[in-house]
């Protein structure tokens, strides 16, 4: 297998990781909610896509137009009703972190329980766009390529929104210092709610794309939370481009190790690179040093 093949296979795999992680970085970085139910939101979207694609004359790509806004609304409601009270009463960042971890841990089981009741615990999968596409002589599956394209699109789009618009600047201000942001007339509660909802919308996009090529079960969300968490921490909390880069790097590392060393060592490689990044730059590849 040539180097180009390995690189492209790695980028395509990393695209999934990046797409999944970007939503979490928004939620953790801006809304300051460490969302342990994140993976279950992804799974919920995967099931939603599964239901939508089964409808006549529908496909998962059109399904994105339903599932992603649905994710936004769901995220917004979760923030307003479940998390906003925690934010209001938390005296400092550490308390909020603990509270949000406990709350979303509970939410994880609620979502899982509802999915189990609705869909049972079976493996679910369907086939969509499982056709070969050739890039520079390397064959990749079209459905996985979509994940990479979507990751890049969403990553750059949201990055542009955050850095180039007034509204994005306000969000970043909230991320840096929620107290000071209020002083210049930013409604921090609303900004955080929108950031959290956007994160959930990204999770929904990720879930929809993943459902096209991956088998999922109602109880499989925690795997995604873990992977996303690794990518987020590697990339720097709250940094979209960081999550995008870290996701792609992780994909390339896994593929390289699998090709040139041994497929059994991919997990070890993931955690080794995670460890190296943490030792070398504890704030993540693109993170700001916090005093």
């Amino acid at each position, binding site marked *: *297998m040539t180097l180009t*093949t*390995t690189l492209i*296979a790695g980028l*395509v*795999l990393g695209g999934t990781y990046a797409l999944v992680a970007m939503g979490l970085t928004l939620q953790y970085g801006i809304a300051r909610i460490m969302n342990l139910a994140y993976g279950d939101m992804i799974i919920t979207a995967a099931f939603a896509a599964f239901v939508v694609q089964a409808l006549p004359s529908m496909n998962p790509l059109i399904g994105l137009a339903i599932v992603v806004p649905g994710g936004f609304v769901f995220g917004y409601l979760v923030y307003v009703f479940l998390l906003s009270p925690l934010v209001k009463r938390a005296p400092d960042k550490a308390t909020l972190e603990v509270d949000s971890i406990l709350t979303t841990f509970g939410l994880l089981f609620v979502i*899982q329980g509802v999915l*189990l009741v609705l869909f*049972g*615990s*079976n*493996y679910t*999968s*369907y*086939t969509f766009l*499982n*056709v*070969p596409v050739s890039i520079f002589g390397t*064959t*990749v*599956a079209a459905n996985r390529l979509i994940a990479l394209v979507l990751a890049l699109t969403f990553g750059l789009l949201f990055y542009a929104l955050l850095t180039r618009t007034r509204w994005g600047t306000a969000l970043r201000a909230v991320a840096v210092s929620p107290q000071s942001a209020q002083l210049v007339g930013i409604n921090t509660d609303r900004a955080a709610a929108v950031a959290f909802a956007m994160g959930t919308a990204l999770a929904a996009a990720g879930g929809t794309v993943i459902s096209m*090529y*991956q*088998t999922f*079960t*109602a*109880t499989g969300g925690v*795997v995604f939370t873990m992977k996303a968490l690794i990518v987020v921490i590697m990339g720097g909390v709250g940094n979209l481009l960081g999550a995008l880069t870290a996701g792609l790097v992780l994909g390339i590392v*896994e*593929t390289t190790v*699998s*090709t040139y060393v*041994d*497929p*059994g060592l*991919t*997990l070890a490689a993931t955690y080794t690179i995670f460890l190296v990044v943490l030792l070398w730059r504890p704030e993540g590849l693109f993170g700001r040093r916090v005093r």
Partner: protein
Amino acid sequence: MFTTFRRLSLTVLAGTAALALAALPGSAQDHPDKIKIGYAVSKTGANAGGAAMTTIPNYKLWLSDLEAKGGLEMPDGTKIPVELIEYDDRSSAEEVVRAVERLAGQDEAHFILPPWGTGFNLAVAPLFDRYGYPQLAVSAVTDKAPDFVKRWPKSFWFLGGGHDYTNALATLLADQVKAGVINPKVAMISVADGFGIDLVTAARPSFKEAGLDVVMDQTYPVGTQDFTTILNEAKASGADTFVAFSYPPGTFALTQQAQVNSFNPKVLYLGVGVGFPPYGANLGEKAEGIMTLGGIDPANESNKAYRERHNEVNGQYPDLWGSVITYASLQMLEEAIKRVGLDREAVSKELSTGTFETVLGETSLEDNQLRDLWFVGQWQNGTLAGVAPADRKGASDAKLPKQPW
């Protein structure tokens, strides 16, 4: 306050009900009013996917059959309704042990059905033995079954051992090599977890003895979703046979990615999941020729009828490996109770020595193990036909090479 009141009223209600029941004249003095059947199985957690496919639907089907018949039949012809006690072990070995202990001690279940999975069946085997319950372990693949039978005389093993499956596969492959259909090279991968480790450990000596040449032997971690590099390597190895001892998510991913990469080995053998009905339904024509563990006799009418009833009750067809055997084991239990009553010692003896008419046909155990099994199955004409052992009644001929995607 409110909850206390409710709990109180419930207790009163239950008490009244119990008194009312006690006041009724007993219809059959020797028999209990209800037969308690209990089980602990993984309804949530990592094992839930497997349990929801092979175990739980068959328990449901059997219980609904019993309900329709009016209960379990006793030797004197009385039928006693069944009361179900169900626990979720949350895919935790400690939990399944605790639940079985509760079923035996606190709930005083008359019979306990086994959990899903090899590890879980082993975890509860000493308990079944200590409390004297027969254990009809179906979803457990183990080469040590003969030893276990000696250690726990009331344990029954229904799904064979790793060597049974790999020996059958090796024999089948060696025959095809002799016939000049395939070359003797085998590329083999396995998931680094219970099932994959057991099977690959059994496969290495099996393949060697059969004169096959394993040119690739790799493991991959649970949860691997991208098999591109592995498939490319297998393609480059020049092997005509590709064997993967995989779990369902890996099986599905391998199938999809083999198509994308136009990976067309002459023998494609994949692990758990190939026998799941959605697998055949999703792939359609493309499933033809894919091999795996298990299978059925497509001509067996009682199996066909069972599959339809399974679909009626559960809204899904059973898998084509363990499901029908799970159901057959329950039929054996039902029949044994009908012959000898509720004495667990006698039921165990009957299971061990008796011959039963089940969905599998005439069924009996050898040394507490079901040995009449399909070890290799192949998708043919829309069903997973048993192809090995080739000398078993109802065996279909293996159709190789597998056609390209």
